[in-house]
């Protein structure tokens, strides 16, 4: 980016230009913003909604430009969340300039949005993007003529190669500094519509004299003719009845449906302009996308290819990230804690403070950090799927099956990721545009048996069902899936009754995403997780430490607040076959992460051996060496995991450790109650990191509240049916 410029000496410092970036989905808008702003991009959410908001302050030729990325939209209608956000921003914030990213390979549909942007009266600079691909197709586009016809600036760009960006920003500065000279041309929609719009404008001036202070008058008139419910609401009009007589003539000539008439008129503008500025070659070749889709969407091959692609994504996400998570875990809990202990020893800190610092603070930090690799990996592959164009195909292939549960084709990927870890799965729901689809998917994700539940099953199955361990574990995964289907249907008919989300989705051409853009995207999302979710997770970890260790000096965990809570809860678990305070307390600690259920049981059941030989802790030097060496082996393992085909390993060490626990479990549980317990672990509330992820992704605790309530009920009922039903059948 050039930052040098001959600065003229002005009496007032040049103002920061606010530039909104609007465009169709798949127009390369994100890539363009990434190319301009790089790592200065800040990712957040639009106020009150779950739609992602990206902003950046960039410097260009000594000037500051604030870029605001609007959600990708095809139109500015008042129906989808994205469109409402985009138009509210444009209308209320009145940016100085709009950059309209236009896909050069699909001019007509993209210009339909351009036409609507012109109506707002804000200076527009069109980035005619993906220009290289259009040229390869033999398209000749006269960008000069686009600019001239519309009274805007139009610049060819190739965001993936950072080409045309300086010209684009130069145009932005030029029109931003002299907006009066760059008002876009108001297109003529034909005699009838123009005349009617004029009459509506006049009538509106009588009805609401101040309305035009806040909005462009012609835009208001056009929106009122369409019967735009948001504009009507804003003007405090019940419907467009007030304009009935002025619209009478138009309706007589063109029929009742003025909304359709307006869409036709705007498309006619876009089509007319496209004919003028675009020359296509006589013969068009069979496109690469067409060739790929003949195989990828084939009747017989479509589903196997889809499943193979999903297996690959799952494997890459978890296998590549897990060695790094393990490394972070080991480093923080080993050398990290030892370092803090040593430092605190130097200042003779009291025991409880050392414990708070190491187990609470360092442990909590470590707990946040181990999620970082998997979140980054998931964001990377999800972005890749979306940017490459395969995500839309995946939704196309799976929609029928997912729709039966009231979900969208795109819900499959978050659900699948849920088997690895529910946390990235919750974040992956951002790929769903419709808030209803997104919420329903997130509600069902915790029923996917995540990797953290497996260690619990392994211990219990080892203790009670050693002969058919595989079948029993498999049955739990299936139980989760069956419950997801049933709950999906239940929610479809209750909470989400009457809402019928649409499935009208573009299948964009396949494109190879740029590595730089992918990396920036992944980094921004990951950073956002670390800061926003990390704070909550950390706070909850520290709180849990307090619950487990207070009142200070408790000898047995039973006397800690956590143990006391377990004793209170235990009677409720009596009908399920595991109404002991030990089981209850283990389940409560499972809120932190489900695998902790086993750890807590171990701690509670097996009294600490006091005279265990203490190993000499390694020195700081050894620690540092070990950190570096183990990072190397983590990287090696990640690389090997990509190549190797097997997935998921059991450590024999784990099994050895849990041996004494197994025999103790036999004293308080039977195979029947053990199975009920496992079902309960599968179904009861998700861990607190999932809670934080839901809060973070949806902006409120509402959906987590629903999840908590239904899962607790479901877990209790299912465990009850298993235990009491089993007893009736004489299995207990």
């Amino acid at each position: 980016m050039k930052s040098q410029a001959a600065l003229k000496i002005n009496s007032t410092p040049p103002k920061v230009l606010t530039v909104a970036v609007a465009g169709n989905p798949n127009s390369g808008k994100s890539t363009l913003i990434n190319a301009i702003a790089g790592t200065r991009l800040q990712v957040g959410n639009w106020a009150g909604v779950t739609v992602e908001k990206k902003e950046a302050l960039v410097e260009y030729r000594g000037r500051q430009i604030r870029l605001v990325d609007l959600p990708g939209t095809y139109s500015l209608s008042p129906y989808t969340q994205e469109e409402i956000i985009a138009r509210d921003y444009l209308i209320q914030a009145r940016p100085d300039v709009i950059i309209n990213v236009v896909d050069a390979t699909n001019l007509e549909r993209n210009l339909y949005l351009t036409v609507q942007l012109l109506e707002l009266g804000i200076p527009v600079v069109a980035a005619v993007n993906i220009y290289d691909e259009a040229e390869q197709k033999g398209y000749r586009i006269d960008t000069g003529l686009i600019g001239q016809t519309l009274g805007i600036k139009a610049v060819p760009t190739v965001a993936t190669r950072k080409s045309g960006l300086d010209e684009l920003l130069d145009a932005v500065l030029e029109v931003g500094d002299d907006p009066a000279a760059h008002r876009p041309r108001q297109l003529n929609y034909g005699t009838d519509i123009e005349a009617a719009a004029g009459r509506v404008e006049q009538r509106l001036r009588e009805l609401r004299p101040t309305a035009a202070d806040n909005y462009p008058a012609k835009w208001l008139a056009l929106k009122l003719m369409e019967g735009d419910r948001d504009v009507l609401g804003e003007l405090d009009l019940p419907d467009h009845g007030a304009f009935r007589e002025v619209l009478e003539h138009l309706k007589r000539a063109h029929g009742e449906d003025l909304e359709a008439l307006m869409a036709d008129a705007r498309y006619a503008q876009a089509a007319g302009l496209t004919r003028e500025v675009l020359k296509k070659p006589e013969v068009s070749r069979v496109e690469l996308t067409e060739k790929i889709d003949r195989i990828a969407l084939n009747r017989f091959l479509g589903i196997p290819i889809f499943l193979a692609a999903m297996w690959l994504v799952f494997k890459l996400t978890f296998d590549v990230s897990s060695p790094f998570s393990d490394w972070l875990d080991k480093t923080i809990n080993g050398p990290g804690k030892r370092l803090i202990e040593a430092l605190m020893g130097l200042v003779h800190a009291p025991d409880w403070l050392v414990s708070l610092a190491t187990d609470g603070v360092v442990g909590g930090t470590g707990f946040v950090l181990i999620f970082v690799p998997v979140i980054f990996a998931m964001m990377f592959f999800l972005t890749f799927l979306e940017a490459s164009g395969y995500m839309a195909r995946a939704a196309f292939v799976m929609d029928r099956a997912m729709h039966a549960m009231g979900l969208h084709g795109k819900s499959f990927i978050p659900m699948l990721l849920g088997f690895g870890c529910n946390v990235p799965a919750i974040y992956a729901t951002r790929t769903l545009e419709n808030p209803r689809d997104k919420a329903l998917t997130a509600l069902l994700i915790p029923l996917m048996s995540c990797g953290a539940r497996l260690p619990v099953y392994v211990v219990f199955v080892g203790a009670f069902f050693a002969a058919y361990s595989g079948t029993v574990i498999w049955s739990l995964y299936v139980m989760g899936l069956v419950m997801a289907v049933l709950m999906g249907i239940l929610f479809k008919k209750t909470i989400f009754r009457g809402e019928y989300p649409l499935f009208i989705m573009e299948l964009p051409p396949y494109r190879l995403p740029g590595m730089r853009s992918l990396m920036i995207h992944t980094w921004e999302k990951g950073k956002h997780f670390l800061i926003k979710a990390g704070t909550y997770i950390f706070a909850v970890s520290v709180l849990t430490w307090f619950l487990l260790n207070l009142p200070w000096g408790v000898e047995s965990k039973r006397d800690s607040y956590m143990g006391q809570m377990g004793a209170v809860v235990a009677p409720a678990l009596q009908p399920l076959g595991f109404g002991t305070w030990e089981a209850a307390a283990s389940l409560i600690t499972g809120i932190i992460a489900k695998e902790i259920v086993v750890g807590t049981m171990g701690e509670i059941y097996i009294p600490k051996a006091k005279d265990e030989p203490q190993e000499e802790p390694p020195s700081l030097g050894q620690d540092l060496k070990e950190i570096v060496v183990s990072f190397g082996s983590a990287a090696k393992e990640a690389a090997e995991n990509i190549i190797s085909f097997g997935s998921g390993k059991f450590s024999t060490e784990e099994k050895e450790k849990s041996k004494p626990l197994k025999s103790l479990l036999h004293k308080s549980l039977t195979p029947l109650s053990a199975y009920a317990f496992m079902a309960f672990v599968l179904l009861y509330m998700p861990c607190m990191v999932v809670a934080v992820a839901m809060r973070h992704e949806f902006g409120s605790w509402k959906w987590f509240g629903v999840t908590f309530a239904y899962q607790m009920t479901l877990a209790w009922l299912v465990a009850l049916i298993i235990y009491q039903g089993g007893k009736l059948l004489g299995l207990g």
Partner: protein
Amino acid sequence: MNLAKLQPGQSGRITQIGALGPLKRRLMDMGVLVGEVVKVEKVAPLGDPIEITVKAYKLSLRKREAEGILVEVLA
């Protein structure tokens, strides 16, 4: 004839869009307008949704949504 009944490879000219409200507006915003020629490209492996070409790009929609779009069959 409605759009959901066209076979892959068949084209049709849209004569009427029976849908209402958001669905109709969404279809129109995507270029599915009366008078437009659309071609059914593929049916998903599980039988729904379908893929069509409209305004030189590919669009997928569920059969239930396509049923409201009336077409006259062209070749």
